């Protein structure tokens, strides 16, 4: 039976992996963050059969506005879960509230395994740190 991965799992794992890699802050201003996550999700979806994953969520930025409901809901959920905080005054910077130890703990307890999330984080950072990264087409 395929391993189920929810949006919660995906975001907790990705945030944990980014924290594990020492990331402290990520900007969510505009729709670039959403677009990058959509790219990461689409990569994951494409390779889901190889990992025997059953993805129970979708990330599809709005075809006009570019923001993703799934991403925004996940940010709110992660804030509620005390994994991140949103910096005043504009709430556009996500600040990680978990350190490496906690991150490793989550990575080891989430479905699909630690390495998968570390790989997702690598793909995310590759695009995030490239100012010319292409926005995912709807």
């Amino acid at each position: 039976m395929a391993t189920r991965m929810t949006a919660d799992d995906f975001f907790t794992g990705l945030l944990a992996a980014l924290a594990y890699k020492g990331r402290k802050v990520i900007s969510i201003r505009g729709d670039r963050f959403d677009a990058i996550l959509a790219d990461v999700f689409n990569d994951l979806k494409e390779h889901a059969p190889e990992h025997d994953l059953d993805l129970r969520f979708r990330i599809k930025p709005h075809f006009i506005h570019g923001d993703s409901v799934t991403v925004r809901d996940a940010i709110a959920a992660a804030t509620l879960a005390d994994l991140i905080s949103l910096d005043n005054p504009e709430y556009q910077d996500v600040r990680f509230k978990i350190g490496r130890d906690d991150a490793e703990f989550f990575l080891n307890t989430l479905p699909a395994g630690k390495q998968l999330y570390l790989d997702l984080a690598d793909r995310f950072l590759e695009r995030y740190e490239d100012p010319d990264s292409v926005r995912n087409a709807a």
Partner: protein
Amino acid sequence: MADARLFGERDEFEAKISTWAQRLLAPYIEGLKQRAKDALPPDRHGKEFNDAIWGTIVLRPLEVVVLDSPLLQRLRRIRQLGVVHLVYPSAEHTRFEHSIGAVAQIARIVSALNERGQDHPVIDEGWTNLLRLTALCHDVGHGVMSHVSEKALTENFAEVETIEFEFADAVNEAEKPRLSEIAAYYIIGSPTFAELVDLAQTVTHDHTLPQKPTTLMQRAVVGATIRDDIPLLQETISGPFDADKLDYMTRDAHMTGVPIVTDINRLVRKVRAITLPAERLPEEVGRAVEAGHAYYVLTGISLSGGRTLDELMIGRALLYDKLYRHQKVRAAEVMVAAIFQQLAPHAPDGPAMVAYALDDADLFDLDDGALARLGINDPAALGPALEIARDLASRLRDRRLFVRAYAFAQNMPLDPYRSEVQHWRGLEQLRRAARSSSERGQLIDRIATELGIVLAGLGMDALIDELPGNDVRPFLWIDPPHAPEQGSDIPRAYLIGDDGEWIRFRDDYAETLGWSTAYPLTRDLGFLFTTPELAPYAFIATEKVLRHDFQVKTPKSMLPYARRTDGEVRPLKHVLAAGGYYDSSAYDLRPLPERLRRADVGKRLRDIVDALRGYEGPVREGHAGKQASLINEDRAMNWLRQFESDELTDAALQVLANVRMVGRRSIASTLRNFLQHHEDLHGGALCPLGEPKDSSAILTYYSEDVAPEFGLVVQSLREALTTDKPVILVDDFIGSGRQSISLFEHLLGVERTVELNEVREQALPENLQEALRTRSVAVVFAAGTTEGAQRLQVRLAELGVNAEVHVGLLELPTVRDERIFASPRQQAAFLERCAYVGKQLLINEEVGHSAKWAEDKGLGYGDSGYLVIFPYNTPTQTLTALWAGGDVDGVPWEPLFPRRPKR
């Protein structure tokens, strides 16, 4: 072409909902055909509706024909707010009047777009009528109890959730669609609905609608573009300030009596449209539409009306918190979910269609007629499931709702365990488990099993026998904390200036989504809901399961949120404890020992905590922002209760009262007193005895408080040895002296007489070793033992270091001091217990700590049982039971002053 296998559930749902709509509409459509055939004169006046919110609303004749169809009339039997009326009695309004109200709002929005800022109307009669009809029909996809049923079905039936994913994969504009939206899409897109609209046009002689109106309506309900030259026209139906929102927010607030600040009238007055050439369109909008139009119309809100959108966000947050997340509303909603859980597996058409087979009245009754509509023609075949479902339905009907039995959240108010890593991590795992339908089910199973044990232990098994099916499981439900979902589309609006320039609302008001979400975010709790009869027992069962499975501790501050009291729970726990229920459980679960319930304990604990205020203990990475101090009354109480018997608990209370924290002032005082008698060291270098990772680094920082008085300068030892200054090395504690000896041996590169397996920097270079041997050196400890100081003194002399060793506080409080205890017998009993506990906690074969090794360390290294702590850490010579954690005879032992592990 999409792989058809990928859309199995969605295709099946589309077929079923279309068939359902077709069956529903068939007689009515036949009637319309006859009417068309009879060529009766058309109704030219439509109908006027008196609406409680908007006054008189006029529907056009075509709209009336559609409204009169069973598809729309069934909305009279579906409450807008599901079960909210069980809490807010006036909230009986239905999807029907909301749909009519949405028509009124679309008319206002269109008027505003046509009137303000343009030379000519941008939306003609035909398109206006299309939008009106779409608004009227936008909720045809809702099922019983509106969002309650779709939430219950999506969260508990994987095949329903799969419909949503497959729909999102198939429809470009959909990301996180709700079942009601999907149903509306397929109903409106069905041939039957197209026929209805077509016949409506015919019998009313109204052919003003654009071509293929139902295709356009179908696109609009999922937010797809319907006109390239007005790219955001569909957002008047589903968008930042759409007709749906303007009606439901006003209607829901009015009917429930919940005041919100949203000024809808003002917002409508701020609606704007501007005409732009393609190159001035927002890039993202231009990308979504065809080229070739001379001009495009961008719709939005005037720049000066931005705050009306803020108000919309505030209103949404208030409604979310006060209505949709009201704990009694949530209790009723989980009961609906529980009913579905019993019935849906037996429904021949599958779980998704359950929402369309029933209306609200059916759910409160579940008579044979309702079951027949579900396709269940032999109710007896359902067995206990039917009995359970009907029991739940009767409870809803008679408002005998579930109650809260347990409450939790990641951040709980006044949580004394917030700094504890296991507890925090456990809460996060609990949160995720509660949000996953499969894991939630397993968790409920474990709680149900535990509840059975609790009830048996209390002789209350009859409560289970009284339940239909003799099973508690259907009557337990976890509803996790939720952030407001659907991310809000309000920030997507465009703000349009008087000069025709535009800016995105979320760029100008970037903070709005954040602060408006923060309000409900910080308040939301998760609950276990159950029947009032089971609640106190369910609390006990849940507390234990969460402690064992997730290491989550229950702060007493959460009892009121679970509507439990200590007076209710404690007697039950005592009975259970007497029967051995807690024998292998953590002490914080057990009833408080009698001694700790006495009136003197509260003040004594407060005094202890006050005396030790400033103690922080080790901070784990990433937890720095959480509770600053590990010393608080709850944690102190939990440490004390581990001693179980009144005599030992009393002894432990005394012991805690004698714990001494050696802080900054003590250290400064020690150094000052020493240096006042050692003028030869004035002007010297103040150095940590150790490396930056050792606590001596903190001591050196504290010691700098007195440095100016004696002309001292703070330096590393290596730095100091390159000068000719005398050297004063500082550290916090010397016990046996072995650690300090090991350090000096390492610095001087000599063979160790003491091996502590610590990671150290390299030895001093030879020239600095020589320098250390040829100058005046003092080694000053804030506290410690005479024996340790003497041992170090001797070894330093052997190593050729001319050093004086000084200890500030020599008279250390210790459990060996009989004056702490009420009697020698009490002291003996306490020492025996602590020695046993300490030894158990220290045994760890993996690191070579055998039982033999631990034998003489049960009361602390050196077996001295000191009662000394520092603000940042605890020496190993202190009583082991105070700082070591682990298991003692299979039961977790919680230290009060945990140490940071040495590396």
